[in-house]
């Protein structure tokens, strides 16, 4: 047993003076093992939906407050909360869960604007931002503000109202929280000419205003349930850290014994390998979850 382990970790004549785990074939096997881990996670998500998931402390109130802070930082008036728009946003989130998709347009071809129409919100300008898998509102807002198209919606001076859907559900077999922002300006409130449609923004012909903005009074909070499922990102980070950690340790051991035995060999530089893998490991461990669309 001890002899076998030394073969994999310590450079010696039997492994041509290079720890066996650092051989290219073994590195490829480690990549393969990681991809198998990914496949298992996806398989579990398919076979046992809801076992894996992302927890979240995001609420509609926090999203509204953060959105208006960003607007105020850019010298824009705060958006008024509109429950009709929120209904539209919640419907969109529920539709993504029901039909298992993650996009502005549903597989059946329903656009964001169809959801506005379904709740009878008539607008001159409207837009939609989507996000998933974020744990906290600050990270979510940073994700949106780092994206030019989503930022353009948040700090669009043409918008007057907002509705927010924060809905928990199972998407692709994994429990998560979807956040949908629906922006709009009712027809009577339009002053400027409508702008041309953008990927996350559209315009229709002005019609009568049927929605009156109201204050935020009773936003439904759906994301404060205590989670008892496993976060797939955490699993990936642990498995990734084990693989990187193992290689880095073996690189150190390999370097030490090579020095000790005074062996000259034709291999790459352990120092540069360790530096590169450490950087990637830092990226991996530091990265927070979340995706926007």
């Amino acid at each position: 047993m001890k002899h076998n382990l030394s073969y994999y970790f310590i450079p010696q004549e039997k492994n041509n003076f290079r720890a066996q785990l650092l051989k290219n074939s073994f590195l490829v096997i480690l990549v393969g093992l990681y991809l198998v881990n990914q496949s298992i996670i996806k398989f579990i998500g398919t076979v046992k939906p809801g076992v894996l998931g992302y927890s979240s402390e995001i609420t509609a109130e926090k999203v509204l407050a953060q959105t208006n802070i960003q607007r105020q930082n850019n010298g824009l008036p705060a958006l008024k909360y509109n429950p009709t728009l929120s209904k539209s946003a919640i419907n969109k989130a529920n539709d993504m869960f029901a039909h298992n998709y993650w996009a502005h347009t549903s597989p059946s071809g329903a656009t964001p604007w169809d959801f506005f129409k379904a709740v009878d919100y008539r607008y001159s300008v409207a837009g939609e931002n989507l996000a998933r898998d974020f744990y906290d509102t600050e990270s979510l807002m940073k994700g949106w503000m780092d994206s030019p198209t989503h930022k353009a919606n948040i700090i669009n001076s043409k918008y007057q109202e907002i509705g927010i859907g924060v809905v928990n559900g199972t998407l692709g077999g994994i429990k998560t929280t979807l956040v949908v922002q629906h922006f709009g300006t009712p027809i009577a409130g339009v002053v400027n000419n409508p702008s041309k449609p953008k990927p996350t923004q559209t315009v229709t012909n002005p019609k009568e205003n049927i929605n009156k903005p109201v204050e935020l009074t009773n936003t439904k909070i759906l994301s404060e349930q205590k989670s008892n499922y496993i976060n797939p990102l955490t699993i990936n980070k642990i498995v990734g850290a084990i693989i990187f950690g193992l290689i880095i340790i073996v690189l150190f051991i390999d370097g030490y014994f090579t020095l000790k035995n005074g062996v000259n060999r034709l291999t790459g530089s352990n120092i540069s390998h360790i530096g590169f893998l450490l950087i990637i490991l830092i990226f991996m461990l530091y990265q927070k979850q979340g995706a926007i669309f």
Partner: protein
Amino acid sequence: MIIPKEIKQKPLEYLSLAIIFIIGLVIYFFANISSHTQRLVVYFMAACYFFWSIIHHYRRGDLSVSVVVEYLVMALLGIILLTVTLF
């Protein structure tokens, strides 16, 4: 110690690699960039690491196919594990 000796022999080369890593870290964490740009930073760093290895070993006189493949596999390992996990 092999580490100081190796670095002492080619200090500027290791310094240039360290600078590449530091620039990558700073851009990744401190620049206000999207996850798409972060992914590009990772690709760029892996490419720099790979090309650095070719120049480094060429100057040292021990550039060989097996060494190039070793760096290529190491760079791909980093890219695959990070991108599959996070993006």
